[in-house]
């Protein structure tokens, strides 16, 4: 079991937090994680996080859904049993295309939306009965918490964080295997 020390700086205002993030980054400290009760606009940019690629996956899933819809209806309605249903032309896919469009559209949206949500859950490790990884319950209500790894620089780091307006600074032994 490996343990390491982290420092938890707690803030009560998102503006103060944003400025603290900028200061800490300019001092070249690595920010492990930030816990906030709500989305803070621009926080990801200030932290220098890479943009999400979720939209690209959604587009690809949509293409997959469209392909599934086309393949399914082409097989069922045109190839497997091309019945005359109310005089609709089932000689080729193209001739009967308008009737298939509503399903093609819906399946595109369905695949795109659902697979993207599932991708999101998997990438962010969210599932039922998962134990919460919250270091301090107050961060779900009105506090903001910045977690920084300590590398024998506790004193300097604590002073820096204090100067950025942290209301509380805790040094915690973090158990890497706990979550």
């Amino acid at each position: 079991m490996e343990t390491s020390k982290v420092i938890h700086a707690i803030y009560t205002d998102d503006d103060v937090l944003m400025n603290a993030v900028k200061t800490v980054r300019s001092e070249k400290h690595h920010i492990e994680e930030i816990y906030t009760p709500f989305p803070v606009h621009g926080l990801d940019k200030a932290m220098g996080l890479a943009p999400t690629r979720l939209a690209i996956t959604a587009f690809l899933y949509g293409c997959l859904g469209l392909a599934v819809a086309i393949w399914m209806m082409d097989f069922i309605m045109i190839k497997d049993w091309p019945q005359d249903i109310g005089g609709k032309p089932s000689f080729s896919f193209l001739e009967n295309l308008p009737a298939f469009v509503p399903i093609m559209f819906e399946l595109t949206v369905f695949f795109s939306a659902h697979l993207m949500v599932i991708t999101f859950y998997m990438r962010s490790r969210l599932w039922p009965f998962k134990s919460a990884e919250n270091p301090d319950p107050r961060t779900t209500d009105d506090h903001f918490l910045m977690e920084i790894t300590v590398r024998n620089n506790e004193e300097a780091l604590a002073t820096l964080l204090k100067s950025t307006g942290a209301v509380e600074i805790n040094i915690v032994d973090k158990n890497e295997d706990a979550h």
Partner: protein
Amino acid sequence: MEYKISNRLRIGAIILMVLGALGIGYGFMDSHQYQNVDDVKELLASESHHGVSHDAEVAGSHGDSEAHAGGESVEEHGVSHEEHVLHQIHNRPYSALYVGALFFFFIALGALAFYAIQFASQAGWSPVLFRVMEAITAYVLPGGLLVLLIAFVADSHIFIWMDESVVATDTIIQNKTSWLNKTGFFIRGIIYLAGWALYRHFAVKFSVAQDLADINDNRNFKKSFRIAAGFLVFYIYTESMMSWDWIMSVDPHWFSTLFGWYVFASMFVSGITVIALITIFLKSKGLLPFVNDSHLHDLAKFMFGISIFWTYLWFSQFMLIWYANIPEEVVYFVTRIEDYNLPFFGMVALNFLFPLLLLMNSDFKRVPWFVVLTGIVILFGHYLDVYTMIMPATAGERWFIGAPEIGSILFFGGLFMLIVFTALGKNPLLAKGNPFIKESEHFHY
């Protein structure tokens, strides 16, 4: 920031108008070399020598009476095929002129509706673009009057129900004469135009007055807000009726309920596209320093979204009629698919697939040349849209995009540029009195 139309632009626009007028004139001369039925007989004979396939096509479309949506009524009344073709040849330059006039008028009217929506919704991002929109809407009045003038001159060359002799033998049109009569058509046309032009006049007046007013005096802005809300109500009724009058009535035997919305989507996306194009043009001249790439992003999002909205309405109209396949409704699409296959389906690719794939990416929406490229494709697509609304009813299978069509685009395009860029020079490019202008200048997405 001030803008003055440059001499180069003015001369360029005038050259376009002259070239266009020459093209239009050539179109009329060209069509009138066929004076009577005998000339057409010669034409048809010479065409049938070109090859077997074309011969078969002519014979085929002649034998199939359903293929003539506009001509159907004519043929029923014992008019020979040659005379029918003669009418189509004569109708073409009028229709080409009408299509060009409608297309550019729709851009201005679409921009006007967009402008009113910005006021009514109190949008915080768009006030920096208001002067561009106001300039584009300067074309509403002259453009609309030209449309009405062409309709008046073209008469039964475009609107078959304006021909007394046709109405006399056509029960379907007779039952519609309480709406479809010439006096009513022009009175309604003038009422629509007057309403739109009045709103435009007062909106611009209040917008300029707000610039000069005291910083705490928002009375002009409040007036703008109220008239915008009133205008939008008036607009949605009149726009729908205008589309019945000016477009749907070219096929007086056909009707569709969502037609007004469909025409609206077309003009709305064209208007937004032109707002984006002119903004990019002025920005490239360094005249709009307060417009940033987030504004461009928003305009491109609107181009993207409304393009898809247009496709939704196009498809809803097409699919419902295709699915039920009721003969009296479906002739409309039969003519378009048989005689206008490429423009009819080509415009769906241009108006849907291009914007869908090019503008989906968030980063691309901020790249000016990308938006310009897509904008040109969208505008061409919506020209084809108006073209396939009018032409099949008047010129039938005798269509082509040649001198009269390109001439009309050049003529009205030149006129549009002249009026819009002259109007752009009349007021400062920043509507500084607008209470949302600070927010708009700092708009960031």
